[in-house]
């Protein structure tokens, strides 16, 4: 139904889409996920030519639409779009917002347009708001009206551009349930979203975008439970991590600790667990390893997997081995020997003569 061939979109300073190739089939419900700035919205906006691709072809029902010859308005009538910021027409009432495009663009009579609009208002549960103006409605209600406006055009595909991102958490549910309802009717949809749970449950196909293209494409099960590629895996597990290289004595200890705490705050990790981690980091790296040599070479990697609820710290260093148990720090020893801290302390000897040591610590959290 829609095919993108080698689509590239460049702006002056960034190139969000480098080479996009994808075929959207009738009946597809596609979730588009990926880190910020990877061109998810740009892709959606290229499909209905709100953004003109720099190069490549967009083919809709066998017709190339970006060659400048195609009547875009006709193509757009078949593609609905729902925006992050709703974009209802401010001077028209709810009912007119849904009627006006039908009358102007499809040539329906006022009566027909009205009946269609009322049906849809019942569908989205806002039949009591006929005469209200958009400014009288909550964000969630506005977005439902926007969806009704799009549906009134009987589109062949609906593009959702982060439909719930501008909403209060309390209103996300009502909009999502309307979209879920639609998905069941078999209409073709493409949804850019940051709500992973929603993306997974609603779609029959998930696209993960990164590196300027479609990084991985598969069923929700594949992408969410068994991602094949590294970045997808990291993203799905929220395995974004932080790294430090400690290679001189003037290492900014306080800066590092504050960075670790920010990371914990961002991922909503319990403060007590973070406290345990920083205690270990400080005692091992700063108080001992850093003091043992004049040419420190310590690498620290901290990562948290939301899915498994594991907080990991890996410390690799060269030189003399440090025996964790030999520490005299009471607080550290307490953490080390606590039942919810697991650690592995090894010496790795690789090809080179250099001796490397690796400490792997895992902090678990048990709800009491």
């Amino acid at each position: 139904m829609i095919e993108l061939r080698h689509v590239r979109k460049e702006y002056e300073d960034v190139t969000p889409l480098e080479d996009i190739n994808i075929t959207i089939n009738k009946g597809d419900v596609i979730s588009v996920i990926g880190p910020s700035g990877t061109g998810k919205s740009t892709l959606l906006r290229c499909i209905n030519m709100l953004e003109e691709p720099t190069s490549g072809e967009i083919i809709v029902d066998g017709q190339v639409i970006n060659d400048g010859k195609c009547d875009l308005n006709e193509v757009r009538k078949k593609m609905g779009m729902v925006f992050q910021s709703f974009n209802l027409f401010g001077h028209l009432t709810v009912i007119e917002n849904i009627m006006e495009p039908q009358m102007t663009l499809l040539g329906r009579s006022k009566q027909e347009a009205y009946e269609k609009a009322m049906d849809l208002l019942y569908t989205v549960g806002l039949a009591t708001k006929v005469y209200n103006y958009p400014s009288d409605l909550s964000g969630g209600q506005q977005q439902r009206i926007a969806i009704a406006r799009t549906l009134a055009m009987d589109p062949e595909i609906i593009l959702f551009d982060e439909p719930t991102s501008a909403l209060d958490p309390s209103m996300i549910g009502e909009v999502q349930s309307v979209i879920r309802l639609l998905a069941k009717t078999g209409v073709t949809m493409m949804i850019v979203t940051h709500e992973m749970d929603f993306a997974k449950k609603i779609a029959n196909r998930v696209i993960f975008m990164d590196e300027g293209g479609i990084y991985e494409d598969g069923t929700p099960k594949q992408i969410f439970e068994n991602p094949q590629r590294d970045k997808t895996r990291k993203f799905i597990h929220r395995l974004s991590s932080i790294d430090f290289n400690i290679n001189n004595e003037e290492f900014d200890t306080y800066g590092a600790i504050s960075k670790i705490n920010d990371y914990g705050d961002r991922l909503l990790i319990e403060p007590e667990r973070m406290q345990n981690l920083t205690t270990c980091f400080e005692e091992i790296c700063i108080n001992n390893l850093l003091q043992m040599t004049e040419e420190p070479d310590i690498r620290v990697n901290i990562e948290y997997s939301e899915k498994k609820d594991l907080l990991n710290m890996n410390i690799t260093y060269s030189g003399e081995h440090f025996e964790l148990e030999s520490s005299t720090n009471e607080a550290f020893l307490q953490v080390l020997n606590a039942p919810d801290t697991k650690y592995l302390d090894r010496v790795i000897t690789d090809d080179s003569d250099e001796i490397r040591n690796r400490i792997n610590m895992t902090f678990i959290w048990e709800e009491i």
Partner: protein
Amino acid sequence: MKNRIKITTFLLVLILLLTAVFGGTSVFAANSTYQKVADLNGKVIGVQTSTLYEEEIMDRCPDSKIMYFTMPPDMINALKGGKVDAYLIEEAGYYEHYKNHPELTVVPENGGDCRGTVAISGKDKQKEARLLFELNEFIAKHKEDGMLDEMYDYWIKGFDANTSVCKEVTYTGENGELRVGVEGAYEPFSFVSFGKDSGFDVDFVQRFCAEYGYIPKFDRVAFEQIAPGVETGTYDLGMNIILSDERDDAVTLTDVYYECGIFLVVLDDEYVSTTNFIESIKNNFHNTFIKEDRWKMFAQGAGLTTLITLASILFGTLFGFLLYIACRKGNKIANGFASVYNWLIDGMPTVVLLMILYYIVFGSTRVSATIVSIIGFTLIFTSSMFDMLSVGFNAVGKGQVEAACALGYSDSQSFFKILLPQAAHHFLPIAENEVVTLIKETSVAGYITVMELTKISDLVRSRTYQAFFALISTAIIYFLISGILTRLIRVLEKKIDPKRRSKDKILEGVVIEE
């Protein structure tokens, strides 16, 4: 209720003004009578701009401060109000001042002599040479046969504003039209009587034209603009240019056609007013409106002001829209043009713009001053319309245009159905102010001889030497015109506000099943 307060306040202010103006006429600061010109050294002396009379007394009053006035009646008021201690006027003008203001007197010693000549445009060298020859011949001939002396006695010595009229002449017109710049508010040389030009200068030109086969066309213009207008070719002749060393080089001047003394006018401290308060109000009112049907001139002036305003709004709105539409899509040429255009128009005083249009752009063409002023104000309103539209359209979220586009609206459909109704809501309230500003701005059109309301009140004041009713009624008329126009815009504003529609209107024609 609010209106009643407004009206009451207005009446109160009016009464206060009346008392201040008319009550003040009989109270004078005691002035010792000056005997010689030199007695006024160090005092403030008024002079009409561009007459250059001040040069005549500079040797005797080197320390005096000179204040410049556009119209003689303003000098009289300044003298009475104590802003100047004396003013300079040619003998001929003084007689008329004295008739209306018996509290005036002159310093016995003359300020100097003034010799009036006619300036001839040098735009067309052939025409210039011919006119110079013909005018000098005319002046020489009638100095000889005594006609000029006769005219001088009639207009200047024996002038009576009610009875003095120009000699009836008939034009053969075989040599075409002559455009003549006259002051128009300058008794007894040129003034407006029963809506027509009259006075010594007018009589002189008419007789000349009749004799030499021309048809005169008079333009009433401020004195200081006559010479420049002749220079640029807007007028063929400029009347009553006073001979001075500096002027001789700039434009071609004819021989002197009249000569008279220059008087230094001061207040007579022995004068005692005899008219009472009520009578002077009656007299003032009669002179301003009833005499010579002057109310008709006010009506015409108001009409012309309204015409200029409405035409400029109409064309300005049209061109502003076109300009905005051209710029809307970010077209570089259109936007570049618009920003230069706005910069030019916004940065220039309206008077300067009008004068550039009248004397330079249309200087040598015969486009009427009214048309030029409509063009000028259209340019101004186009600029403000463009700004208003930019503000109005920017106030409508970009998202709505994008949504319309994504639905499949064409560019013009989204412009007219989505953007315009919302933008109008934002720019109409600004338009209200812009229109009021425009109406007030039209008052400067008088500078380029347009007989609009303010100019009319100047002309009437120059005849009556009484400012009160002329100025107050002018202000009231401006209030009325702007009141009506802003009311109209407000009605429009309400009419197109979609949120004021009733529920029935929204779904008009739809059968609603319950």
